[in-house]
Structures are given as C-alpha cells and as structure tokens.
C-alpha cells in the first residue's frame, strides 16, 4: 500500500464510520418512532387531519376539559427545550419541565415501566424525527378544584409508581416464555392498556397496574368518552375467554376478527398504534393477555341458543324488541345474530353485548360506528346511527333483545339508560370524514 493511499483509506474509514453512526442514529430514530406507536402517543396528541403530535385534542372529563399538549420539538409551543432527562421524567413521572404535575390522562403510571433504552429512542425520535410545529394549545378548562395542579402532585405521590421500583418489579417477575414477558412489557408499559381497561378508584388511580396486582387488572374500565372498555381477561362471556391468540393478533392488526370488531377509542388505538406493531409484538400481547385468568371463573360459559333465531326465521316477532331488531339490525347482523364476520360483527356471544354495562351497545345503536381501514385491510365499514330513527323506548327494546338472544344473558335495558347515553351522544362525524369505499 503506498503512502498516498493512506489518507484515502483513512477517509474511507472515516466516512464509513460516519455512515455507520448516521445509520445508528437512523436506527435509534426508527426505533423511537416504533416506541411512539407502541405507546400510542399520536392518538391523544394529534387532532385528526392536522399535524402529527401538535396537540390540541380535547378530552371531556367529568371534571372539565383537557387539551393534549403539543409534543413536537417546537421550542416555544412544544417540547423543544426539554433535555432528555426532563423528557423522561415527564413521560415516566408526569412532571412537566416547569415542575408542575401532569393530569393523569397522561398514562405515566404505565409509562413508568418503560425501559431507558425505549425512552432514549423515543426522545431521539421526538427531537429529530418529528417536525416542529408552532401551535400553542389552549389552556385546560378544568373546573375548580381540579383546575389546581398542586393536588395532582399529591395524587402522583400517592398513586404513581416510582419508576425505579416499577422497573425493578418488572425485572423480578418470571414469565413462562420470553414472548409473554415482552407482551407484559407492552401491555403494562408503553401500551398502557390498563388506562382504559382497568377500573379506577374514586380517587381516579387504576385499581391495578400490572397482572401481579390482582384480577381487577384489565377487568374492564369505567366509561371513556362514553364508551365502556371491556374486560381483556379470560372471562368467557364478557372477556377474551373465547378469543384465541390469532383472534387477538388479527384484531390488533385490523380491528376485525370473527367474534367482534373495534369501536370507540379502540379504533384510534388500532389506527395509530397496534396495527403498526410487528406481528411478533402483536403475538406477544395476545399470548400475555391469554395468561390473565377470568375475574369470575365460575360464571357459566356462552353457548349458542337457537331459540331466538328460530322464532325470527318463522316470522315470530312477538318477543320484546324482536320486530325492531328485524327492521333495523338483521339486514347486517342476521336474525341468527351471527352476522357476516369479518364484514359485519356478530352480536351472538359478543363480549361487548353481554357487558354488564350496556353503554357501549346503546351508543353504537344511537351513533353508529366506523370500522376504519387498516394497512392490512383497506376496506372500511360504516354502521349508520339510529338516533333519529329510534326513540329511547325502541333502542331499549332492541338492545334488550340483543342482550338476551342467541345464548346472550345480559340484563334488560330501560329507556332511561338510553336517555342517559343519548344526552352525551354527539351527532357523529361529518360526512366528509366518512370512509370513501
């Protein structure tokens, strides 16, 4: 090798190193983008149709209105001035850069479990991979005393886990296989499934933050935007007892599987989050969820009962709500309640239908639902709302029929139940936002 070549070789080596470093940065950024998907940051911090992560989405809570902050790296209106340590403290502990405590709408009790590696990647992604957007989000409209931030610090101190403990605790757990371990991390950590699917105490903290905290974990949450998140535990009628791993994977990827379809907030969780996960991570979540025992293990399992279907097929619509069901629902969901999955979801044996709280079912009947297109399933399906066509009595009768037919065994619904849901049901999406297939 001549001396002349040395600097060239050196330069090539230097360049190669530079490229490697750049590639490593790219990898971290890409990984951070993936972490953002698993943590579903976009669903809350983006107004549909507007710049990603620029905030402004409204959250109507019983205590007032919250507005998701701008988390783009814009220095003035976003998180551009956050150091990595400040960023991680905010995500894991809910402490803003100025020291104020974030409302626990931000699921930091779950994020506390996120690894250093994931949070580093997430920081790199937000600082380098997200376009800064100058968008000052309006101040929160919380009513007093919830407008005060200081009690939040007390709440945080009382109920949010210390990240170090949380991580240690996770590390100490044993799992049947690494996939379940990964699933546990995703569900309890970044995925923050419990934020919606675990019941909360009067003081608003989740009654369980992980599987080891007991069987209330993911046993079904309180209303979120009027939707009632179902149990993700192994309950046969009201949980995922009859869903197998592949059913869950399919649901996370597409929002549709033979036993049900996504609605309410889960639609966003799938759109922004779970559909973008790797098949391996989707399987990890499925396998982990299948390890959760039923809350009420002694409850009788669901089996199909043909009585209602036979009656309808014979033209007998004498049962309460039967004629209404035939006139409004059966075209897509069939007289046998089995519908045409995965185009139109079944009502027979559907956990949402048998949920002790009928709110989700009532809301779907009133407002309809859009099953959105996903990467794997380009077709969207729209159920119209029946709020204008059916009064409270008619909806109550219909829902009562659905909850009692085909082996379903949920209690009847009264017109006042419907009226309560109707009061909080908005007109629905503008036609322009409906899918175009």
């Amino acid at each position, binding site marked *: 090798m001549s001396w002349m070549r040395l600097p060239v070789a050196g330069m090539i080596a230097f360049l190669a190193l530079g490229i490697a470093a750049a590639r490593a940065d790219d990898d971290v950024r890409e990984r951070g983008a993936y972490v953002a998907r698993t943590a579903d940051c976009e669903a809350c911090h983006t107004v549909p149709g507007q710049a990603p992560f620029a905030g402004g989405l409204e959250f109507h809570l019983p205590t007032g209105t919250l507005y998701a902050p701008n988390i783009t790296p814009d220095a003035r209106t976003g998180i551009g001035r956050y150091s990595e340590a400040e960023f991680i403290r905010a995500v894991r502990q809910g402490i803003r850069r100025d020291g104020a405590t974030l409302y626990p709408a931000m699921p930091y009790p779950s994020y506390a479990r996120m690894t250093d590696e994931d949070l580093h990647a997430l920081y790199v992604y937000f600082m380098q991979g997200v376009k800064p957007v100058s968008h000052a989000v309006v101040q929160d409209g919380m009513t007093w005393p919830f407008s005060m931030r200081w009690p939040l610090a007390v709440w945080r101190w009382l109920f949010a886990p210390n990240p170090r403990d949380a991580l240690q605790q996770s590390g100490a757990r044993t799992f049947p296989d690494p996939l379940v371990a990964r699933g546990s991390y995703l569900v309890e950590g970044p995925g923050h499934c419990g934020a919606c699917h675990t019941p909360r105490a009067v003081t608003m903290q989740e009654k369980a933050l992980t599987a080891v905290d007991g069987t209330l974990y993911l046993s079904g949450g309180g209303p979120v935007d009027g939707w009632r998140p179902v149990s993700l535990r192994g309950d046969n009628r009201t949980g995922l007892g009859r869903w197998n791993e592949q059913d869950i994977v399919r649901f996370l990827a597409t929002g549709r599987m033979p036993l049900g379809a996504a609605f309410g907030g889960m639609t966003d969780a799938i759109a922004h989050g779970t559909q973008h996960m790797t098949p391996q991570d989707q399987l990890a979540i499925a396998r982990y969820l299948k390890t959760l025992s039923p809350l009420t293990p002694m409850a009788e399992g669901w089996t199909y009962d043909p009585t209602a279907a036979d009656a309808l097929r014979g033209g007998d619509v004498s049962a309460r709500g039967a004629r209404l069901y035939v006139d*409004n629902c059966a*075209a*897509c969901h069939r007289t046998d309640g089995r519908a*045409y*999955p*995965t*185009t*139109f979801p079944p009502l027979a044996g559907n956990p949402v239908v048998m949920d002790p709280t009928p709110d989700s079912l009532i809301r779907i009947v009133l407002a309809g639902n*859009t099953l959105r*297109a996903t990467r*794997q*399933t*380009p*077709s*969207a*399906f*729209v159920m*119209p709302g029946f709020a204008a*066509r059916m009064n409270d009595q008619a909806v109550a009768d219909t829902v009562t029929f659905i909850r009692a037919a085909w082996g379903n065994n949920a209690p009847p619904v009264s017109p006042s139940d419907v009226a309560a849901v109707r009061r909080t049901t908005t007109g629905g999406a503008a*036609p322009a936002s*409906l*899918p*175009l*297939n």
Partner: protein
Amino acid sequence: MSADARRLRPVDVVIVGGGWAGSIMAKEMTEAGRSVVMLERGADRSTAADGAYPASLDELEANFRYRLFQDLSKNTVTIRNNSQQTALPYRRMSAFLPGEGVGGAGLHWSGVHFRMPPDDLRLRSRVIEKYGRRFIPEGMNLQDYGVTYEELEPFFDKAEKVFGTSGEAYMVDGKVVGNGNVFSPSRSDTFPLPALKDVYTAHLFRKAAAEVGFHPYSLPAANASRQYVNPYGVQMGPCNFCGYCSGYACYMYSKASPNVNILPVLRRHPLFELRPRCHVLRVEKDADGRRATGVTYIDAQGQVFTQPAELVILTAFQFHNVRLMLLSGIGRPYDPVHNEGVVGRNFVYQNVTTSTVWLDPKVETNQYIGAGGGGVAFDDFNSENFDHGPLGFVGGSPVWVNQAGVRAIAAANAGGPPGTPRWGSAWKAGMIDTYRHSLRIDAHGANMAYRDVYLDLDPTWKDAYGQPLLRMTFDWKDNDIRMNRYVVDRIGDVAKAMGARRTHLVRREFGVPFDTRQYQTTHLGGGAVMGEDPQTSALNRYLQSWDVHNVFVIGANAFPQGTGYNPTGMVAALAYWAAHHIRTTYLAQPGPLAG
C-alpha cells in the same frame, strides 16, 4: 394547448372517467409505477353516504330522480331514427341511464357479470364459416373483435376475482366440473364464489326450462354470495337479496363496484390522484396530431386546466368516449354515405324485450326479493349455439329470469295485464295481481351493426360548455326483430311448462321505430370499435387508437356489434387485456402495438 387553460404539472398517465374501466386502468398503471391522475366529471361517492341504510333505500330518489345518474341538464345526446330526420335532444332520462360520479355506472349497476362467448368475438368469421358470406344481410357491418376468447381468458378470470363474482362453472381446463352453462367455454378456474341462491321465480323457471329441454344455469353475478376478500385485499359483504340493486349503491358492500372493489386500495396509493367534478373537454395533441399531449378539462368552479400526460386513457361511458374522440380529432369520423371512416361507425344497442307470466293466484312470487345479477338463464338461442341457417337471421339472445327486486313505484307503473287501464279501480286490481303473482322473463338479445346506424356530432345542440352534443342515428332492423320474435316464442314454451295462468309475450314489432321514451337498457356499444383493420375499426386489438398511439380507449365502445350478454364483464376484461399490453410492451417502447 388551449391558450387560457392553466397548465398543470405533467403526470405519466391521465385517465378520463372514474368508473370500472378507469379504476382498473389506474390500478394497473400505478402497479406499473406510473403516476396517474383520474378525472371524473361527477361527484365523489361512497357507500357510507350514498348507500346508507336505510336512508338510501328510496325508490323515488334512486330510480325516478336519478340521484346517481348523469346530469342531463349539462350534457346529453340527440337521437333520430334515420339520417333523413332531425335528431332531437334526449331531454329526460328514459331509454337508457348513463352514470355519473366516482364509480360511474359501476356503482349503481345490477351486477350481471358475463364473459363474451367465443363465437361472438369472431362473429363475422363464424357466420361465414357456417352459412357463407351471402348470409350476412345487406348493410350489416358484421365484424370480428380481433381478439380471441383464449387470449382474453386470463383477463376474464382476473376480473371475476376482483369483482368477487358468484356463479357455477361448467368446464374448467376442458373438464366438466359443475352444472354451469353447457354452452360456455372452458375456464382456467371456477368462479371465486358459488352461485347465488335462486329466488322462487328463478327456481320455477329453471325447472320449466329444463322440462322443455333447454339448459338452464345460474346467472354469473357480481353480487357476492358470501363474504369475500379480493386479490387487492378489499372486503365485500354478502348479498342478502334486499332488492335494491339497480340504481343504488349497495349498503351491504356486496355488489361489486369500483368504489368497493378497487378504489380503497387506489385512493391510498401515492402515485394516484382522483379529481372529481372535472369535465374533460378534449384530448390535446401535438402539432402534427400524431401524439396526445394531455387533456383539457373544466372543474366545478369553471376553471379550465390542461393536464399534460405521456399516456391518455379514455374510460368514460361508451358514447362519451366516442364523443371525446370526435371533439379531439382522434381517428377519422365515420361517413355513412361512403361507409368510410371509423369514429362513430358500428353504433349498437341491445335488443331486449320483457314478457310477463302470471301464475296461480295462490303462488306468491315475492318480486321484491332479488339480487341485481342473480337469476337463471338459458343460452340455447344465444350466440352461435343454435343453427341460424333455416332461421335466416344473425345474432341471438339469452333468456332469463333476473329478478333484481321490483319495488313499489315500478310495480304501479307496470300495471296489470294487457288491456288493463293505467288508472282507476281496474288498474288497481290488475296491478296488485300482477305484482303478487307474476314473474318477468327477458329476451336479452344482440343488436347487429348497420351501415346507417352511427354516431356523429350534432349540428344544432350544444352542452353546457358550448360543445356540440353527440348525435345518435338508430333504429331497429328486420334481422334483429326476426331474431327477437323467434326467441320470444321459446319463452312461450317455458311459460306453458310453468303452468302459466296467463302469458303476455312481448315481441319487437316490424315497422315500430326505436322509442326513446321507454326504458330499454343502458347497454349501448360500439362507435369506436376494436379490430384488425384500420379501415373498419378506430382501435387496434389492444384498444389503442390507430392514429394517435398514446391514446387508449376502453369501454363498450370497442364492441364491433352488440351481444346478448351484459357488457361489464367484457369491458373489465378488455381493460385488463389492454393494461397488460401497455405494461409489458408499450411502456418500454411507446408506439403502435399493432401494425
């Protein structure tokens, strides 16, 4: 280029018309890595809005106010029966119902989905082989397509898989596999979905037709008989025989449409752009007129744009394609006096009459139950499936019960048996009896092409943009009337076997001119036909303009003469056929694909 038009950023391909042909071509061109702009004159459309349950199940709006159809107030055609008459504007929707809006007529069609019979594709050759050249009547421009069934088979197959077509095959790879149409040619695969169930009337017809000795089969229907995922990954629901097909967007997502079957994938393709409410005025050409440079269109705000493109694909409705060619000077206009020129030549229609059969008053025919493409047919008198020699006419007609769902206003207008008044108590009694206890049988015949039946530009009337309307010169000819009358008599045999209480056979009558006031069918064809001879066809066998090689024209305009079958399956297959040759040959080396 127009002086006052705003010139847009060039794209690879511009497609004129957002129906089946346009959506297929756009899909194929984006798959080939080409940027595509698809221009559609009408509004964007979707099942959620236009097929909402139950609000869209409104017969008045759908079938009598033509919610999804062409806006005739802006653009129509003029019609006359012969060149001695003054053609007059088609002012109100009646004889035929062209579509408008994204999805085109493919959104509100019924769904009967056929392959073209092999003999129809080379009808001139076949007739000469069987009966001699002199069998062809004077003035009939009988022609071959220039493409064979074997060549098109993979594209028929592809279209069926994309549409989710339900049907029963007869022969696959030369082996009999099922109870399909015994006259149908061998296929490379079965239908993607099993045949739809027979409604009661179709069931009765199937039995009776077999008794008479005919060969009934299930109509191939692009109404999904169960849930389906097509090769593009889009989903369809199953048809539940709701009876709201023709004129409606299918709320069950079970009738194939560009909107449900192709556009969900296309809309999110980065190389695809759809521009609704853009009406194309003309194709632009370069100075020597041998190459198209793009199209000029006017948008909803009245602004005029020129969209430059390397490739221009016309996929509008049959007669709009022909008109655009005439307005743009692509191909030599047809001259009926000398039988020369090609654009406007061989304009054809379809030769349909509907007969009614009344059954015992105890039999309820439930005509409101139906699927647009469903039913039972026999082909014993279609195409070259029977000996025309002693009969002395060219062409044929399938016969079928295609109960697509008869709704209330249609029932009222159909009235009672012949001789019943159109109103009053007698009408009421006859109309109710007819609705409850009758069924309808169609002779869905071919219409041959004639030298003096053609399309050109009208000298008097203009559209909303100041361009001349298209003029149709059309009438029924004795050959076609004889064919219809022969086949309708066979319907009489079947009606008898059904135990008809009363039969009203409707035959075409000699000397009765084409009447624009009564609905016939929207299956118009020809006018810019495909073929192997540039003297008798506007397009070569790849649907490429003989004269302007970067213009392809896809549609029923390419049919050299009419056929007994519904055209959509053939149009879709021709689109895939043309796209295949564009992708494999033309894009690499643009130029004429046929010499």
